[in-house]
């Protein structure tokens, strides 16, 4: 019997001698009621706190990633006019010319400085500039040797550390010995900026380059293409096999021990840790079948096995949602069972299947551990060319950069996460759109 019932009993006039109201019994009941309401309030507060905690974790997580990563999308570029001195350039051995030195002395000249005897000053300037400038100059001269003896303007990113200074991530207030750039270098950077030599713009290099040992030239394109190729393999394998398995289990399979075993098996597979799939890929695909390591093919094979249970489970629930009347109608007009399923049930379940498939792909895209096992930790400064060329994928790229020592890679890791999340949000958004646009309620 609850307190409310007690109160109800207490307040009912049970005899002529009892005035309803302030007897000790009702007082105690009112007190209890108050305590119960306080407990109710507390309980509700716990629930609300839990929600707020969960949501604030999300906000902190995403906010932290964006605050660490945004600066990668800004690139500081410098353009330097270099006089290509014919006396210093051997036209027969262009690769042997010290282009970086030529560019850094030109940049020093802009500031009204000349190199000292031991080359320390030009070395310091060279550390502020990206080697990309030197390659650029070399490429220009190679394309048109008549430029020797003329002034050539090269344009390219500044060095990673100099970029960190412009973005406020290396501060003057830090003791000189504790930062990568000394006071003189910071002074030059300020002067270059003041002279308008340095411009900042959106970093397209980050989105179009493959990985590089130089942070300012490294990009996510290699990993993004690797991810795309891997996902193609996953999609081509997991979606047809998963959908057909689900069709079999839901529409054709007899209820017996074999299908019970299948069901238990599929549910268990969905909960197997992803690293176990990586071990399977390593032992089965690489070691036994000789699929080349580090390739989108082997990565895709492993992730396809991992995505399979998800696709099966999603397809089954989509098929279950199609009402039996559809099947009965088709069978009633003389369609065979196969025709019923493939001409009527499957098309009607298509939105649900597509949603599930996209979610499974997006999940596979974010998976890292199997990639580590099958050698997707791969450094390549070229974009992957196909399913059989070694490549990395976006989450593994995050792992690689996270372990890189250069400071500039920290913000690039966060930026790579932003790219990865952007792709995943795009995919999930598509799935949600499909679900809301085409889902039919029966």
């Amino acid at each position, binding site marked *: 019997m609850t307190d409310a*019932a007690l109160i109800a009993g207490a307040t009912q006039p049970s005899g002529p001698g009892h005035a309803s109201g302030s007897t000790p019994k009702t007082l105690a009941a009112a007190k209890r009621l108050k305590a119960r309401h306080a407990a109710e309030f507390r*309980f509700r507060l716990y629930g609300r706190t839990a929600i707020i905690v969960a949501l604030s974790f999300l906000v902190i997580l995403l906010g932290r*990633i964006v605050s660490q990563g945004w600066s990668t999308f800004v690139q500081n570029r410098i353009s330097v006019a270099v006089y290509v001195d014919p006396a210093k350039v051997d036209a027969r051995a262009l690769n042997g010319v010290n282009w970086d030195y030529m560019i850094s002395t030109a940049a020093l000249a802009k500031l009204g400085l000349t190199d000292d005897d031991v080359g320390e000053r030009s070395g310091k300037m060279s550390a502020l500039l990206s080697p990309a400038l030197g390659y650029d100059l070399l490429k220009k001269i190679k394309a048109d040797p008549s430029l020797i003896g003329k002034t050539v303007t090269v344009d390219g990113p500044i060095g990673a550390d100099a970029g960190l200074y412009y973005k406020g991530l290396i501060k003057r207030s830090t003791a000189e010995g504790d930062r990568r750039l000394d006071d003189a270098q910071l002074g030059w950077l300020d002067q270059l900026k003041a002279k308008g030599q340095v411009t900042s713009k959106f970093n397209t290099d980050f989105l179009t380059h493959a990985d590089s040992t130089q942070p300012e030239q490294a990009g996510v394109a290699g990993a993004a293409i690797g991810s795309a190729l891997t996902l193609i393999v996953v999609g081509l394998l997991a979606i047809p096999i998963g959908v057909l*398995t689900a069709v079999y289990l839901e529409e054709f399979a007899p209820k017996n021990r074999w299908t019970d075993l299948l069901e238990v098996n599929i549910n268990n597979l969905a909960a197997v840790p992803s690293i176990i799939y990586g071990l399977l890929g390593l032992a089965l695909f690489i070691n036994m079948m000789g699929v080349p390591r580090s390739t989108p093919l082997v990565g895709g094979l492993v992730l396809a096995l991992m995505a399979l249970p998800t696709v099966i489970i999603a397809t089954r629930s989509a098929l279950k949602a199609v009402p039996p009347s559809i099947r009965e109608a088709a069978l009633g007009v003389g369609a065979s069972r196969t025709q019923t399923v493939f001409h009527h049930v499957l098309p009607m379940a298509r939105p649900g299947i597509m949603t599930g498939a996209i979610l499974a792909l997006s999940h596979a895209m974010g998976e*890292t551990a199997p990639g580590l096992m099958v050698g997707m930790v791969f450094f390549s400064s070229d974009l992957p060319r196909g399913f059989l060329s070694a490549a990395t994928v976006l989450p593994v790229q*995050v792992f690689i950069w996270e372990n890189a020592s250069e400071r500039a890679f920290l913000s690039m890791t966060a930026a790579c996460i932003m790219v990865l999340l952007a792709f995943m949000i795009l995919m999930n958004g598509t799935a949600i759109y499909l679900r809301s646009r085409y889902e039919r309620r029966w």
Partner: protein
Amino acid sequence: MLILMVLLALAALSAGAYAMGRRKARQATAGAAGRPHSLPGYHGAYVALWTGLPAAILLFAFVAFGGRIEYALISADPPPASAGITAERMATYYGDVQSVANGQSTSAVVYEGAAKTAFDAAVAHARSTDTLARLLAAAAALVLAIGGFLLAFPKLSKDFRARNRVEGLTSAVLIVCSVVAVMTTLGIVMSLLYESLRFFQAVSPLSFLFGTDWDPQIAMRTDQVMTHGAFGAIPLFAGTFLIMIIAMAVAAPVGLYSAIYLAEYAGRTTRAVVKPALEILAGVPTVVYGFFAALTVGPLFRSGFNALGAQLVGGPLNDLGLYLGQVQNQMALVAGAVMGIMLIPFVSSLSDDIINAVPQALRDGSYAMGATKSETIKRVILPAALPGVVAALLLAMSRAIGETMIVTLAAGLQAKLTANPLDTVTTVTVQIVTLLTGDTEFDNPKTLAAFGLGLTLFAITLVLNIIALRIVQKYREQYD
């Protein structure tokens, strides 16, 4: 390239066969009386399948296993003794031969002099073997395609049961697809067992499962000074469970309370905002959580504890202060707490479903007796949902144990037997990753140990999953 072209040719042949089959069926039925057994399309499909399918299977088998066969062919004749390739390096050598021959790497610079000439000869041999194999496969595929067509086409007639044949094949394909899932499980078990058995030949299972010393440094070559590796997995499991317990301490209360709030208190609009937000939290890849743990939470916790330690030094808790002053980024608490955040949406969405599955009549009955909402939840709904909630927590535990990236990035590598959450510990998954990234020659206990760990991990998570899924299934039947 050749294989791709043959596949395209096969597709074209099948399309042609389809058209021919359909036309023949139409012609056969045009003049005759009575209705044909199958629609013309089925006749076409029957011929097309016979034309394309066997040949395509052959080609896929070649792509899957051809590399292996070629490898056996080129490694059949050993390099001349002058090349000085030792027996241990043979596998690497032929691996290089094959990858250079396939154009996956441009050249192998490690070989010089006599070895280089032998290597080049081997590459040339591998290339010619490869070309021959491809041509043979392509020719065989074409022969199969034509043979299939010649076999199937004459059978077509008005009464030919083409639909039944095609549908029979369709259901065969369905069954084959559903076998893939079973094969995956078998593959996992077999490959883990096989490699683990090799590991247990070098290290006894008892000392693996009950040893308290983990130090897998072992000599990679015979000429190195031998350091015996120690493979006692107890510290790894202790670390794994420590982190799992911390994670559950975060995820269970937050996840459960948010599920209760969402299911019982929240209005339509709150649900519409919170549920997708939790789904986003659930969709964030684990490597992102690892990054967050290693570079945000780790330093934050460390500086917090260090500051606390500085306050305590000199006071009554001087020793604790000194200890707190030197804790590192990579403590179990950091990995556990972030893993807990990761598991919140998992726990909450599973429990939400379970709470929603409790019949409304139970709630109504409780309210009718005058119980408040929280009393209804605590005394009626939660007891009714308890098995399901326990199952959800078990599934979350299984995920915490198998989670890799957070611990790889945020937990340490030192195998310690400790229950102190401020200490660095290592986990099973971290060790698998460390043992297997880098070289993966499958002949020393160091790499094979990863499979031993994998097998144990698989067994533990499998038991947890089976128990949890059993409970969920029983529970569903109870209310259905």
